[in-house]
């Protein structure tokens, strides 16, 4: 049994963990649930020797461990599969597996490692070719390499930090299969997540953390997604569902037969309309032309054929340009923020040349600070200091900053690309409410998301994108409350033709 005993940790004034005790049994998958900032990563990092606790002990089979570095954890059979994989991309799988086994001689034991990798792969459904280079592997395969690394180090405790966040549904299923097999052979698996459905599917027991405290540890059979969500957030939380608001307003964005072979995926004859007051969703598996479509709407790429039209509230045509659209970018850390600049500087980044914020090339510091302070208040960004670096904000707070900045500029079109990826329940809810509010205030919202649930909850109309082609999926059924046909959307996402036989 691995025990965290009365662990406490502060970072400056912030209490990350306060007197947390958890027991992790052998032969179990133990999920640790919590919102961003609840302390689950801190706890895992303590168990892995990356962070030293201020108080408390880590006890393995009755023996207190001294965990000062990850090496100490390895020696105790504790391994971690990081969210951002710790692999050398330029190396083969086998080379990655050999790295850091300092106990063997000078020459690289290539054939032995290959053999052991194949053996472990077969036993635990972790198939991956040891001679492939990591950069050629898919995300799911890379994760398998990480698990293999831990196995070859003879780990007994596996810590997985949000392992499914980046996986396709199929890869996630395969991961679960591997984890079950590992557990059945006696391994102890610590599974960090905030996806409730997954936790219910794989975990034997669940621990919920909130604001650095342990709220509950219980058997997964006894928990329900609703009860867990409530314990995570601290209050009952109905999932936000936006009532459909079909719009007959003016178009704010119109694409007519747009084609372009630029980018990784060619857009082919794409037509779409977004009217003021509505949210239009684009569903699809990542990498089917979403990036290319977004660039087109932002005016970053010009169509080779067809037409992209953007309209201001008076119906006049405006040139598509990044500054003409409120853009909630896919990768906020790279596309939306300059992480080394302050919150205040980021808050005006796209609009710093506006007369409010600068004159004749000189920045108006006071106006910028007061604008930032207003965003901080309105969008509940923490820490509430305009001068902290954007890099030091949590993911949820970074996204609040981006949304605050983009929505404050008052553009007619909002383009949101995977706006809740990596966010916890409360931040996701916040983002959904803001987007919905914008639509109610007369904006047109184009929501491109790989999360079909998100789309179904928010949008009025759905297009599915596959291999650069758009297909509209219309509501059907009861005319009073028409619903989307999710089976049809799934077929379109997979590139299959819509079910023609079903409707006549």
């Amino acid at each position, binding site marked *: 049994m691995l025990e965290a005993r009365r662990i406490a940790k502060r970072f400056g004034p912030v209490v990350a963990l306060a007197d947390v005790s958890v027991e992790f049994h052998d032969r179990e998958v133990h999920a640790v649930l919590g919102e961003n900032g609840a302390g689950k990563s801190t706890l895992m990092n303590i168990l892995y020797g990356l962070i030293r606790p201020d108080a408390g002990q880590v006890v393995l089979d009755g023996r207190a461990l001294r965990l000062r570095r990850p090496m100490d954890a390895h020696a105790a059979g504790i391994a971690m599969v990081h969210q951002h*994989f*710790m692999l*050398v*991309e330029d*190396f083969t799988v086998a080379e990655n597996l*050999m790295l*850091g086994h300092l106990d*063997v001689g000078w*020459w690289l034991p290539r054939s032995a490692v290959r053999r052991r990798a194949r053996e472990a792969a077969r036993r635990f459904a972790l198939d991956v070719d040891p001679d492939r280079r990591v950069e050629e592997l898919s995300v799911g395969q890379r994760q398998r390499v990480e698990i293999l690394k831990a196995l070859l180090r003879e780990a007994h405790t596996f810590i997985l930090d949000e392992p499914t966040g980046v996986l396709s549904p199929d890869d996630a299923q395969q991961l679960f299969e591997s984890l079950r097999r590992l557990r059945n052979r006696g391994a102890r698996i610590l599974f960090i997540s905030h996806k409730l459905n997954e936790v219910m599917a794989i975990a034997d027991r669940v621990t919920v953390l909130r604001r650095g405290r342990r709220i509950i540890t219980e058997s997964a059979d006894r928990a329900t997604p609703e009860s867990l969500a409530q314990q995570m957030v601290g209050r009952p939380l109905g999932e936000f569902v936006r009532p459909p608001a079909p719009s007959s307003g003016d178009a704010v964005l119109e694409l007519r037969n747009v084609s372009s072979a630029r980018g990784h995926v060619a857009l082919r004859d794409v037509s779409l309309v977004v009217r003021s007051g509505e949210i239009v969703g684009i569903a699809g598996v990542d990498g089917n032309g979403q990036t290319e479509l977004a660039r087109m709407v932002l005016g970053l790429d010009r169509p080779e054929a067809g037409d992209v039209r953007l309209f201001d509230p008076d119906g006049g045509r405006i040139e598509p340009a990044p500054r003409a659209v409120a853009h909630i970018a896919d990768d906020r850390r790279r596309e939306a923020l300059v992480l080394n600049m302050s919150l205040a500087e980021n808050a005006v980044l796209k609009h710093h040349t506006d007369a409010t914020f600068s004159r004749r090339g000189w920045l108006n510091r006071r106006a910028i600070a007061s604008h930032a302070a207003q965003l901080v208040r309105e969008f509940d960004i923490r820490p509430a200091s305009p001068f902290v670096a954007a890099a030091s904000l949590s993911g949820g707070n970074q996204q609040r900053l981006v949304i605050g900045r983009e929505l404050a500029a008052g553009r007619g079109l909002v383009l949101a690309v995977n706006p809740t990826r990596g966010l916890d329940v409360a931040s996701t809810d916040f983002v959904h409410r803001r987007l919905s509010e914008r639509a109610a205030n007369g904006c047109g919202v184009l929501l491109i998301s790989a999360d079909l649930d998100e789309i179904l909850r928010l949008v009025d109309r759905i297009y599915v994108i596959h291999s650069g082609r758009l297909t509209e999926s219309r509501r059907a059924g009861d005319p009073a409350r028409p619903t989307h046909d999710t089976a049809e959307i799934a077929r379109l996402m997979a590139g299959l033709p819509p079910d023609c036989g079903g409707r006549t």
Partner: protein
Amino acid sequence: MNDVTVPELVASTLHRGVQAAVPLALAANGELIAERAGLLNIGIEGVMLIGALGGVASAWWTGSAVAGLIGAALAGALAALLFALWTVAWRRDQVVTGLAINLLAFGLTGVAVQRLDRFAESHGSTFVAPPLPMPAGIDPLATLTLLVVAVTHVAIFCTRPGLTLRAVGENPEAADTAGIRVALVRFIAAAVGGALVGLAGGALSVGMTHRFQEFMTGGRGFLALALVIFGRWSPIGVAIAACFFGLLDALQVTLQPTLGDAVHLLYPALVALPYVLTLVALAGVTGRARAPAALATPYDPR
């Protein structure tokens, strides 16, 4: 050109080419080792210069050219450790630190050699290195260089320390979580690489001119920097590139007398030829070569 036969001309050109290639190959291999660990030491010219001076100084002091070469390597290693102290221990910018080392080395070696000249004179001696022994007519430096290239190549690609080195240069974070001490590996790589760069300087001074002159490296360090890219971060590739440029350099010397009066016009162009070709080749080659992913990036484990 009257009494020299063509085979003789070819032989002398080849000989001169090898001589020119030796310091280039040594320096480029030293830089390569550092770069494989993620350290871009553009102070290589300065390190080489320090090695050249350290080499002559120790050869003069001990009266042995071999001791001179060892001294050159030690001086280079120390200069490179200075670089590592700034960039690894204190995480300062590698380009700025490299520039500083160059300027420091240009100035310091100039001042030092004047003092050493006077010091040697006051002892009734001259500040020069004795010639290297040539057992059985084998060029010891060329042989050493071949050995260094072969050992480096095998070590980097076939041994555990090589894998560790490459991992640190590609993804220090992954190396760290695998239990590798990134800073230590970088210090060692800097020292070993610096020793080779210093040895390259020693090959110029102790091995060829037997004395130290200000700026005697004449841009060979910077050329070596380009050769690492040229040879795609592989020791054998780098050695081939060094031979190519060594030969080019020798050819330029051989061709000079045949040009007659045009020499005044063409001499500068000929001297520039290796560098111009470097530029041309780099423009075409770098697009396909891949540098270590963490090159010139400090690692801060927090």
